[in-house]
């Protein structure tokens, strides 16, 4: 009878124990094992300096940037089920997302989350600067951080085109016109005429930096597809690799910074 009762406790069942190898920890050793034995928690060290757990010191901005990135990944995947990146479908699919799709605030979460991530990444950089945390031995990780900042803005920029409304197409037109002005490589950039073999000009509207970015001369269906692939596959893959290096180096360079 006593044995039967014990088995009914779900926290002591065979299944529960097989998933969570560690019991709810009661002592110091158990708490350390909690972090070491969990694939998600083991990004953390087992113990950290006192000041580093204070929100006043870290502002949580690095962690929040990562968290918002995860939210964007989840909502982004859900959006991909409903959205087709063609000039005929994109705009109406976005309207359907709000009007006919169940849980129709995924686009809202994705859009506001994208703005939020740009802000949290900027503020994270700001905090790291103000605490002097970029100084040796962390200088390379700061450089990785700058790459992550750039990638965050590129992710946001490529996503900007996808609703295929007036705001989207003209914002990307303004942005991609900059590429046309690239020195040597842009059709309107200084020195573009110098890049030639004999009389054949190599930098033309069909071969310059803007064309490389858009996949065509102006922002049309080809650019939409290209930005969709950049936004959903290329940049996320690249940013995840750099994030892995970034988090790894935080640990390897001595953990969260603190005074010597």
């Amino acid at each position: 009878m006593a044995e039967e009762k014990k088995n009914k406790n779900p926290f002591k069942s065979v299944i529960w124990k097989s998933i969570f190898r560690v019991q709810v920890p009661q002592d110091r050793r158990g708490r350390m094992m909690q972090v070491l034995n969990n694939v998600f928690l083991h990004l953390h060290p087992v113990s950290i300096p006192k000041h580093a757990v204070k929100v006043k010191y870290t502002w949580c901005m690095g962690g929040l940037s990562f968290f918002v990135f995860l939210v964007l990944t989840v909502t982004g995947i859900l959006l991909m089920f409903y959205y087709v990146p063609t000039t005929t479908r994109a705009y109406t699919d976005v309207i359907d997302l709000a009007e006919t799709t169940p849980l129709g605030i995924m686009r809202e979460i994705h859009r506001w989350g994208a703005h939020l991530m740009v802000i949290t990444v900027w503020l994270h950089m700001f905090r790291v600067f103000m605490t002097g945390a970029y100084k040796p031995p962390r200088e390379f990780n700061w450089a990785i951080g700058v790459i992550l900042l750039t990638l965050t803005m590129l992710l946001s920029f490529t996503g900007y085109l996808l609703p295929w409304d007036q705001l989207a197409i003209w914002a990307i037109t303004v942005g991609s016109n900059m590429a046309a002005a690239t020195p040597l490589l842009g059709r309107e950039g200084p020195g573009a005429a110098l890049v030639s073999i004999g009389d054949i000009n190599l930098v033309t509207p069909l071969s310059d930096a803007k064309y490389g970015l858009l996949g065509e001369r102006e922002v049309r269906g080809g650019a939409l597809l290209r930005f969709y692939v950049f936004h959903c596959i290329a940049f996320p893959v690249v940013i995840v690799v750099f994030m892995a290096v970034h988090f790894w180096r935080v640990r390897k360079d001595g953990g969260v910074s603190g005074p010597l």
Partner: protein
Amino acid sequence: MGESVKHLVNVFSSPTISFLTLFAIFFFIFPPTEWFAAINRRLGIYKLWTGKGGVFIFTVMITGHCLSLTDPNYRAIVLKPDNVPIVLLLFSTVFFLWLSMKQAYANDARLAQGLKPNEYEVPEKRKVLVWPDLVYTELIVMVLCMVGLLVWSIVLQAPLEEPADPSLTPNPSKAPWYFLALQEMLVYFDPWLAGVAFPTVIIVGLMAIPYIDTDRSTSGYFSFQNRKLFISLFLFGWLVLWVYMVIVGTFFRGPGWNFFGPFERWDPHKVAALNNVNLSEIIYVIALKQTLPDNVLVREIWGILLTSFYFMGIPPLLAKFRLKGFFERMGSMKYSWFMFLSLMALSLPIKMILRWSINLKYMIATPWFNI
């Protein structure tokens, strides 16, 4: 009364006045050298970075914002769903600026008394376990963030404009808000500089910071006094040349990229008379009363000389005289990078001031490129 205040704010917000004011007072608020720091102390500006100072800053900001919301033109631009993040950016930047400066000044005071900074713990007692001390903070912050994001998403629908129409250019056409500082630079520089060269220099320059400022003794805690030159310059770039320009680009640039004050209606027919002239015209036509020389090199020689002097003459001169000690401490490599990045950052305010004062269009105007 209300109208005249609004009119005053409109006039004051124009880049000409607001930027110059910001430029003039910035280095007294964030003093880069002891000379500025002395004035900062005498005027008591450092008191902004206390509890009372924070209450003052936020009372002014929130009251001003709330009062302004009674104006329909201000409401139209600030409450536009896509501009909400910029309001969030403005308030959070000021808040975190205050928070970091407050902790920095508190630590400076401790260091001046020979104490360790607040972040310091004696080595034996300094560590706490991540489970539960860190993970529960992370959990709470994640939940709060998610709640905030959900509420934001339920309250504000993501905007969607008319379907894309390549034949209908909206006026103004704006880049995404986080690039608006670059679009604002387009007013003063050609696209190859504002859209390509400057972003490259910004990215490379940011990466170069830890290789220029390598003093480890100020690593890992908030401080200002011992790092004032670097903090002051970084904040100038980040707050004035980036955040301020984003805000101008978002809120104050209307049709035709003309300036509109926060309480001004966006009138598409507003005309700003611009008659910009190149440096060569100013020298040959206006000053020397001649015609422009045909030879490009002769015509542009003054601009070329001035620009070359700016980048290649000023750093060695400063190293020899004014910044001798700094140069010797830094070494020539770090010093050159430091000067190059600082001069690049300063070239924007210089070009802005030249544009406003003498309508300068280009320093160097050639058929191939313009600066």
